[in-house]
């Protein structure tokens, strides 16, 4: 068993880290403070192919493997989690499903501009009354001649405020006991699609997360992704790979917290010695370092299984569950190590703490990940 990244993956990590430290770290504080996402960052990252990470070159992407993808998201999130979230959602649950389930026409029309970073994508599943419980989806798409008419409300749309392409999950049958879902690619400028104001988030504040309302929104049949009734399958399979991305995000935030906490413990003197000399603080740090390494192994392994074409539903759920809980713990304990200074905005740890918390919630809460894992153990 060989558990080291390849030569290519090491160079990718270095390349992304250098970019992120030079370009993202300096804007992270301002993005958090003002809740804005600088458009020049999008343009720069588009040129460097961050918007088509796993999309093959002939559709304008970088054609990376899943482990490299995980490393990219980890390194971006280490510098700026809100950008990490943007890249992660755009790639794993918006561009990738269009590549995987789209027709050649849809790939040309929607995927190529997305991979080139000209069009930002979203994934719109959650509704006011359907969060963890996807079976309560209320957005309806009624067949109408050559297309569908969509009505409903989506909430918590990551990238919503700057998106051009939105994947909308809707119910396509109004009769029959079992609801059948379908996915529609809906352009932001399409009549009947309306974006609400951005949420005032606790963390990930640089990302414009907003609601999207669909009022008699006519969508041509060519915009349906996959067959009618394939929606749930597309949602679930996208979320499996999405979780590798969230795990990587959590990992990046955890690593950033660890880096600053290890440093702080060496620099801060109390009782005539650095904090790192106190047994209690050492214990904290040792536990955190160990758990971050565990999260990293779970995350890379789930990506590796994906690269091998092997089943990885359980592994991605475990990686997402573990890495996000580790991230919350590392930031919480890291803040504790910083004492009162950690509770101020003079240090980045309070931002990491707020950012990390989101990873336990989206793309399936920790409770839902435990359900997925329990199911893989044969529990109902």
């Amino acid at each position: 068993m060989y558990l080291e990244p390849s030569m290519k993956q090491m160079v990718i990590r270095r390349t992304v880290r250098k970019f992120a430290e030079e370009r993202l770290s300096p804007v992270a504080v301002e993005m958090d403070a003002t809740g804005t996402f600088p458009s020049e960052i999008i343009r720069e990252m588009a040129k460097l192919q961050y918007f088509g990470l796993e999309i093959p070159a002939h559709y304008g992407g970088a054609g990376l493997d899943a482990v490299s993808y995980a490393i990219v998201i980890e390194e971006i999130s280490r510098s700026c989690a809100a950008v990490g979230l943007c890249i992660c959602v755009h790639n794993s649950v918006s561009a990738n499903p269009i590549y995987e389930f789209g027709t050649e026409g849809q790939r040309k029309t929607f995927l190529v501009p997305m991979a080139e970073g000209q069009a930002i994508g979203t994934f719109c599943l959650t509704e006011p009354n359907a969060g963890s419980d996807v079976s309560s989806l209320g957005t309806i798409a009624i067949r109408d001649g050559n297309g569908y008419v969509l009505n409903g409300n989506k909430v918590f749309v990551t990238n919503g405020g700057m998106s051009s392409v939105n994947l909308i999950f809707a119910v396509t049958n109004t009769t029959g006991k079992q609801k059948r879902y379908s996915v529609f690619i809906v352009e932001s400028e399409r009549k009947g699609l309306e974006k609400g104001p951005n949420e005032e988030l606790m963390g990930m504040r640089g990302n414009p997360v907003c609601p999207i309302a669909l009022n008699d929104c006519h969508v041509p049949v060519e915009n349906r992704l996959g067959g009618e009734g394939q929606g749930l399958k597309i949602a679930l399979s996208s979320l499996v790979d999405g979780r590798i991305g969230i795990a990587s995000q959590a990992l990046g935030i955890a690593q950033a917290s660890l880096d600053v906490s290890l440093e702080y413990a060496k620099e801060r003197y109390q009782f005539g010695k650095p904090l790192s000399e106190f047994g209690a603080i050492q214990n904290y740090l040792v536990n955190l370092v160990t758990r971050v390494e565990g999260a990293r192994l779970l995350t890379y392994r789930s990506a590796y299984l994906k690269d091998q074409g092997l089943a990885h539903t359980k592994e991605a759920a475990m990686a997402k569950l573990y890495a996000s809980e580790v991230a919350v713990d590392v930031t919480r304990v890291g803040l504790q190590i910083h004492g009162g200074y950690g509770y101020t905005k003079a240090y980045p740890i309070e931002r990491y703490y707020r950012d990390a918390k989101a990873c336990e919630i989206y793309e399936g809460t920790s409770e839902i990940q435990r359900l997925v894992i329990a199911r893989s153990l044969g529990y109902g």
Partner: protein
Amino acid sequence: MDIIVCIKQVPDVPNIRLDEHRMTIIREGVEGIINPLDCVALEAAVNLRERQGGRITVLSMGPPQSEEALREALAFGADQAILLTDPAFAGADTLATSHVLATAISMLKPFPDLVICGRQTIDSDTGHVGPQIAEELDLPQVCGVNEIHPQGDSLVVKRLYDGFQDTFRVNTPALLTVSQDLSSPHHIPLGDLERAFSDREIIRWAIKDLNLKPEEVGLGGSATRVWKLRKAASKRRGEIVTGSTQSLVEHVIRKLEALSILDEESGNG
């Protein structure tokens, strides 16, 4: 314009550790990066190719893992990469290194118009290799350039030296070593990295491909031997002073004045 860029893989700088017994740099477990000034050289080559057309070949002498640096250079924009690798090359000093690199360059057809090196490396820092290659190939050389302007068959280059800006016109073929101010290396698109590692070839030349004899290369071809290596004791010593804020500030000001960092005149300015 046919350009050769010589690149060396060096340990990532904060991690450099020395093996005092074997008198070498410890490379195991340390990430190797392209010597930072060699990236500046590469960027300059890419800019020249943009204006003049032509081809960029990257050349490195090193152990097999230097392939990583060459592939990164391909992603950066090089057209071709040559790795000079052979157990016989091990232990080379700067003379033996330059000899192997110069021999490889002399075998390229057509002979390049320009060879670019970094002015020095971050691991050994001798700054010998560029000038020695130029001497062996009998090329005009300018070291530490911070501007390059092609003009017909020649180049107008500038460098900062002893507080003066020197301007030279050199006929090609020529060799330049570059300083940090010349350019800032661009970020590499991820797809270019993917292709550099999955689709591109690295040409490998060993001692026999260069028609060199073992006594001309590696330790045998070296004019110098490292005799003794020890870590220099750090001369930085801290001083802890206590007292009131006022007296501490005065103390620091006196110290800074004594070191001529702060000028007495400007004290109250």
